[in-house]
């Protein structure tokens, strides 16, 4: 038995005590004895955050990240559950790999791992992977993220098959031919910098196609990391039409723009690219009005030397799993409110995945996070648990840092510990 004293619930100033029995929540303010007492320091207790889009790089690219560093980083970011992307080496298109990942992650004891598996063999977009066997092995969703689904018929078949298994398919929605060799948003800045551009329409054209395929199949389709006002508007209209579609946005698309690339720093190179301030503002409106279901980080760790290359050869991706919540809280708590923000990181993500909404009610899994909403602390990449020790927000002073993450009743992260 464990009790956590000196914590608050969202929307309340009252000091309360939460009791945890084993891996379940027992209840609040009970008159029972506990073996262990944790002091919540007056922080706000919320269900542990759910990350539905992280690149953990294992197997095959452990110099960038591995399960241990990635899941420890997730726990430090307040996450209790992480959906990992399958674009590893080899690709997660084999049930044995799903099992290995899940078993190894369970031994580590940081955040829970729910591996996503490839929709198609080798993520080649041509033949469906063994979706039923992958689900049996523990795959949480199907996606060819890292690649785009160029063949519309294959995506249709994948959606139909996944739907029969009651599984969601998520897509990296960019028309690869329209994107071409673009390394940043196509516009005034890309031309000023002389860099090949990726037009906003590469995303919206593909989202329009995928909406029609979701309409056709009536299968659950999740659109990852939306970056443009145009594509978001298409999703908004599709939802109004009753198409079974969900979408996520990433912290970097909300807080950074293509203007940040003017210094030629490849830390800002990401796919889809950082867009305009108008796009960022539209995405924020999408969070407010419910068009956006969840915040996913697209945590994409790389080595520092890879990101010190020029903008043509540096890899795409921004690591953010340790700063996502404080960043979003500091920038947008006034606009969105704490409750809405927490929902985007918890119940919204669960809804996308088709999972029960997490709660702090008796009987629920003891996956919880304590947030310190007051103490200001600067982003210090050298202290990241992630192997990616760089951040476009380095030095930025944020509030809302997680101080404790409990997963299945065990301490997965404790600040200062």
């Amino acid at each position, binding site marked *: 038995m464990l009790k956590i004293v000196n914590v608050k619930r969202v929307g309340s100033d009252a000091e309360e005590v939460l009791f945890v029995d084993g891996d379940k929540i027992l209840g609040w303010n009970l008159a029972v004895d506990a073996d262990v007492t944790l002091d919540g320091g007056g922080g706000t207790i919320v269900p542990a955050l759910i990350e539905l889009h992280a690149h953990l790089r294992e197997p095959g690219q452990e110099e960038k990240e591995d399960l241990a560093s990635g899941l420890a980083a997730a726990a430090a970011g307040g996450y209790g559950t992480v959906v990992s992307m399958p674009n590893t080496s080899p690709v997660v298109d084999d049930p044995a790999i799903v099992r290995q990942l899940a078993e190894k992650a369970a031994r580590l004891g940081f955040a829970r791992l729910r591996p996503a598996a490839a929709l198609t063999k080798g993520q080649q977009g041509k033949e469906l992977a063994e979706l039923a066997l992958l689900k049996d092995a523990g795959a949480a969703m199907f996606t060819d993220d890292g690649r785009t689904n160029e063949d519309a018929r294959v995506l249709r078949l994948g959606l139909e098959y996944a739907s029969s298994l009651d599984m969601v398919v998520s897509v990296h929605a960019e028309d690869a031919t329209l994107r071409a060799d673009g390394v940043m948003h196509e516009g005034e800045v890309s031309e000023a*910098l*002389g*860099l090949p551009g990726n037009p906003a329409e590469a995303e919206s054209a593909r989202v329009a196609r995928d909406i029609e395929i979701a309409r056709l199949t009536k299968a659950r389709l999740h659109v990852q990391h939306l970056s443009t006002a145009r594509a978001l508007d298409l999703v908004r209209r599709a939802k109004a039409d009753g198409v079974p579609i969900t979408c996520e946005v990433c912290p970097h698309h909300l807080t950074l723009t293509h203007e940040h690339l003017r210094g*030629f720093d490849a830390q800002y190179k990401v796919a889809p690219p950082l867009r305009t301030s108008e796009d960022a503002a539209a995405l924020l409106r999408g969070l407010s009005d419910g068009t956006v279901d969840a915040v996913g980080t697209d945590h994409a760790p790389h080595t520092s030397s*890879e990101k*010190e290359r*020029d903008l*043509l050869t540096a890899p795409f991706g921004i690591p953010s799993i340790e700063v996502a919540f404080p960043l979003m809280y500091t920038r947008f708590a006034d606009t969105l409110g704490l409750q809405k923000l927490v929902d985007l990181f918890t119940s919204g993500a669960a809804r996308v995945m088709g999972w029960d909404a997490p709660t702090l009610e008796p009987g629920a899994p003891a996956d919880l996070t304590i947030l310190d909403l007051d103490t200001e602390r600067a982003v210090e990449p050298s202290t990241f648990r992630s192997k990616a020790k760089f951040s476009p927000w380095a030095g930025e002073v944020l509030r809302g840092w997680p101080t404790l993450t409990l997963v299945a009743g065990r301490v997965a992260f404790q600040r200062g510990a």
Partner: protein
Amino acid sequence: MTRSLLDFADWTAEQVQAIFDTADVMHEVLARPVKKVPALQGMTICTAFFENSTRTRLSFELAARRMSADVVTFAAGASSLSKGESLRDTIETLNALGVDAFIVRHEASGAAHLVNKYSAKPTINAGDGRRAHPTQALLDAYTLREKFGSLEGKKITIVGDVRHSRVARSNAELLPMLGASVTLCGPATLLPKELARRGVTLTTDVNEAVKGADAVMALRLQRERMNAGYLGSLEEYAATYQVNEALMERARDGAFVLHPGPMNRDVEISGSLADSPRALIVRQVENGLAVRMSVLYHLLVGRGA
């Protein structure tokens, strides 16, 4: 004076004028029997060419040697860069060997900025991606100024693959600073509309572009552009956009013709026009040496001269 020449973003017309004045002096040096001055004696200049360009590299190396600098050359082809060493590691290694300045050529836009950031040494951009090639623009402007006296009010037309041209971008930055107007012209697929700004107009109509021009510059057209879908064929391009005698009829009487080289004769420029007295192409190369000597002098020795 700016410590590096990456592009013209933080340069003024006065600073450019100072470069030109010193280039006049360098021309006198180059006319002497012993074409050498000790201005950069004891300094080591590294030409870091991550992308091949023998002509530009030779021009820079000769400019450095004429001023008694030691020159070391880094050529990426044979280097560890192909084995994945980062640009930063490469530059820090060269820096540790005591290099005093970097002259950088790279296929990626912005690479010269990164070199400057990692070395903190004076850096000259010798062409980065499609972004900038400032010494080429300086020698173009210097060559035109030699003919016109002043660029004030002159119309300079640049025809060709503007999209992929660092020469066009740098000229479109520099020439308006010196009082000229620039017209960029090419097929719509090779003419990004975002390049239009004060002093720079865009058109796909080559007859319109050349009308009344005081000078016309043809840009090199790469065969790959055809295969990449920017063009139907080189023949079509030549029929529509080639800078030739007939097109030059529309320009001012006695208008000059430039080309940054190397030329595809009878593609972007007619061979006969390139060989005609109005072509300044050879003079551009000669002036390139004096201008680069002047740039090196200003960045490494001169203090606001």
